């Protein structure tokens, strides 16, 4: 089915914020969301009363039945549009699309999008990992000891089988993102990481060791969407939405059509088409990186290289800041932060910052167009976002 509508250049992200990432034992899950929202509002130079829409995701740590309403109440908002979306790690991107649709057709003026949880201190490592087994099918995956690392490990092994991707190439993804995290003042991981450390780490699910898996954080992020016209009068340099696309092919890995070609192919194609750009036009990419295999498949499925070449792109340094296509410039979910839907949202925050162009040592020089890919479940739900600092 072909759709003809467009959101290109109709809305802008005018404020971004993230909470103090890492461990926040004195704060609640709603509290860290509020901290991110307050920072996004200050960044935009807007008032609380300007917000008329609120979109959020989900929380394992504080599983409110109506998280959108609970967060709205906590923030003292009285929005005329509010919901909580549960499409896994793709929730923030999909929330951006819904926010943009509402603003573009005049059904909302200023929409706040936020997501995150205090998984590190509110749930803890063991309970967080246990809770995530619920992503597997209750009858046909969970009774077999299925786990999220295990499902992604099967993708990695299939990728190695089909394309010859190596263990060292997987490790280079973790090293790439750690190097970037060291340049970010709010990243959780603050010590260098070597290929040797990744390869010798304790095994989780083969081929993955500990450093092939995302970290567990107290983390939340927020951004504010308004019309492109209104954005010009606000404090921060606006970052415009150029293109956005979604795709959903399956929920459970046993129903995935392929372990190496996922919905990112179609979500990316839709985003490029709306933005009227291609992979060669992208200056910086913030790709989902729950495990080291994920952004390798991302690079390939989003057209940055041929299938099977993603591992080599990381290993050769093309994905470093200063390289051909810097990837996960904030340190990604492997080293910056990850807690539920926060990981994908913080990729959007980082893309906005890169396009503003004031990020010091981790600035991608001359960045004008950024791509963000959010993914939920077991490569199940996909949203690709293309942002630009010029309406073109």
């Amino acid at each position, binding site marked *: 089915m072909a759709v003809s509508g467009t959101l290109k250049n109709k809305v802008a992200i005018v404020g971004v914020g993230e909470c103090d990432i890492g461990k926040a034992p004195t704060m609640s899950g709603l509290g860290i969301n509020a901290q991110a929202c307050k920072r996004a509002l200050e960044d935009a130079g807007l008032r609380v009363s300007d917000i008329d829409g609120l979109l959020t995701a989900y929380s394992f740590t504080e599983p409110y039945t109506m998280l959108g309403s609970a967060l709205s109440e906590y923030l003292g908002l009285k929005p005329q549009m509010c919901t909580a979306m549960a499409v896994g790690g793709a929730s923030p991107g999909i929330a951006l699309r819904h926010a943009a649709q509402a603003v573009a057709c005049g059904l909302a003026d200023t929409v706040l999008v936020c997501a995150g949880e205090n998984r590190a201190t509110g749930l803890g490592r063991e309970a967080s990992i246990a809770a995530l087994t619920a992503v597997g099918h209750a*009858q046909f995956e969970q009774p077999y000891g299925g786990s999220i690392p295990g499902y992604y490990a099967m993708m990695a092994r299939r990728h190695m089988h089909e394309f010859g991707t190596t263990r060292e190439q997987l490790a280079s993804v973790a090293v790439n993102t750690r190097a970037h995290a060291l340049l970010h003042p709010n990243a959780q991981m603050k010590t260098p990481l070597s290929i040797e450390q990744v390869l010798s780490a304790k095994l989780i699910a083969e081929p993955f060791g500990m450093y092939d898996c995302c970290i567990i954080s107290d983390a939340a992020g927020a951004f504010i969407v308004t019309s492109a016209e209104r954005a010009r009068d606000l404090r921060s340099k606006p970052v415009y939405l150029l293109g956005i696309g979604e795709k959903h092919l399956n929920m459970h890995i046993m129903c995935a059509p392929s372990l190496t070609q996922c919905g990112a192919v179609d979500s990316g194609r839709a985003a490029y088409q709306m933005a009227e750009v291609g992979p060669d036009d992208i200056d910086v990419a913030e790709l989902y990186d729950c495990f080291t295999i994920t952004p390798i498949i991302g690079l390939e499925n989003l057209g940055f290289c041929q299938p099977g070449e993603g591992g080599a792109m990381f290993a050769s340094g093309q994905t470093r800041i200063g390289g051909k296509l810097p990837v996960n410039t904030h340190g990604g979910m492997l080293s910056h932060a990850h807690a539920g839907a926060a990981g994908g949202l913080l990729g959007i925050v980082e893309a906005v910052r890169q396009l503003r162009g004031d990020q010091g040592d981790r600035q991608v020089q001359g960045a004008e167009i950024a791509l963000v890919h959010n993914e939920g479940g077991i490569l199940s739900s996909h949203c690709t976002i293309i942002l630009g600092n010029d309406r073109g």
Partner: protein
Amino acid sequence: MTGYGLKETELPKPSPNGDSLPYWNAAREKRLLIRLCKACGAKHFLPRYLCPVCWSDQLDWIESKGQGTIHSSSIVHRASLPSFASQTPYVIALIDLDEGPRMFANIIGSDSLAASIGDRVRVVFEDRAGDMLPQFSRVVGDT
């Protein structure tokens, strides 16, 4: 927070629902069932009310021969749930049944850790406190 399976020590048993009860009843008789759409002929594994291809609600259960090929697998060294901790290292795998549909299971047996993509496997049934869980073991010399 409590819950999330952290206090469970026994391996989980499947909990059938209206879609899957015939599947699990057949498993108790050591038979592996899949669904066949009488309208379009599509076969699928995940039990549903309707055919995911054509939406016909005229479905049959057919018995799989229980033979297939490993599409991918992993050796799990760190269990996500305490109830599986005593099982590590264990093998999870996606199995392409010869009839077409793909399913998820463990590879069990003394040579399970040697499982690799393309290996031929055959269904075996694991007794889990009275319920039977379809599992697979490698068919040696038939790759």
